[in-house]
């Protein structure tokens, strides 16, 4: 599964994207975030404030409870500031 990061989420994690092998039992975006936070302090820092970082699965905004099964690309980013 491909993960992509933007803006200060990208800066905190220190990479733009990565391929990860998500273990069995990780069913939702929220569970994926919890698993990522255990991978190192850069992830802990990026996701430190619960509920701030947004997610998209295959280019569609999703909520933390969204299922990740079948996702090709999951993105994490701060609230948008376009327009």
């Amino acid at each position, binding site marked *: 599964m491909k993960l992509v990061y933007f*803006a200060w989420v990208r800066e905190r994690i220190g990479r733009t994207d990565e391929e990860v092998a998500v273990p069995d039992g990780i069913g939702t975006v929220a569970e994926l975030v919890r698993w990522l936070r255990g991978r190192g302090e850069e992830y802990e820092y990026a996701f430190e404030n619960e509920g701030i970082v947004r997610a998209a699965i295959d*280019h*569609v*905004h999703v909520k933390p409870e969204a299922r990740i099964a079948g996702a090709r690309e999951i993105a994490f*980013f*701060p609230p*948008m*500031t*376009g*327009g």
Partner: protein
Amino acid sequence: MAHTIRIQAEPFDAAAETAALTDGRADIGAVVAFTGLCRDEDGRLAALELEHYAGMAEAEIGRIAAQAQTRWNLLGLTIIHRFGKIVPGEGIVLVLTASASRQAAFEAASFLMDYLKTHAPFWKREHLKDGLVGAWVEAKEADDRAAERWR
């Protein structure tokens, strides 16, 4: 109705885009053109840098445009959003709505801007006049509230 959506680094030409939307037509009664510009924040700002999520930006703006077309009777719709470095005075975003009536054109343009602000995957960072790279611009609660009112 066809709509034009472009995500680009280059500046846009609002007049040329408006002409493309309206030339040769006699059924349009109202055109609203919204241009969002880069401000210099009282001289503090050298440029804004806009990061975006290529692929999702086009998809999400397409979904927002489709919503607008469902809600209002539009005869034309153009959305152009820039990324990269943009200096004060330059345009960042252009929204054009054409309709038979002014209310539809105004409301659709206002809706589109509220949704672009809060849903389109773009992130602004400030580059300051003193050469420093400033902070990421924080999302405003007021923008979330503005988007909420269309629900």
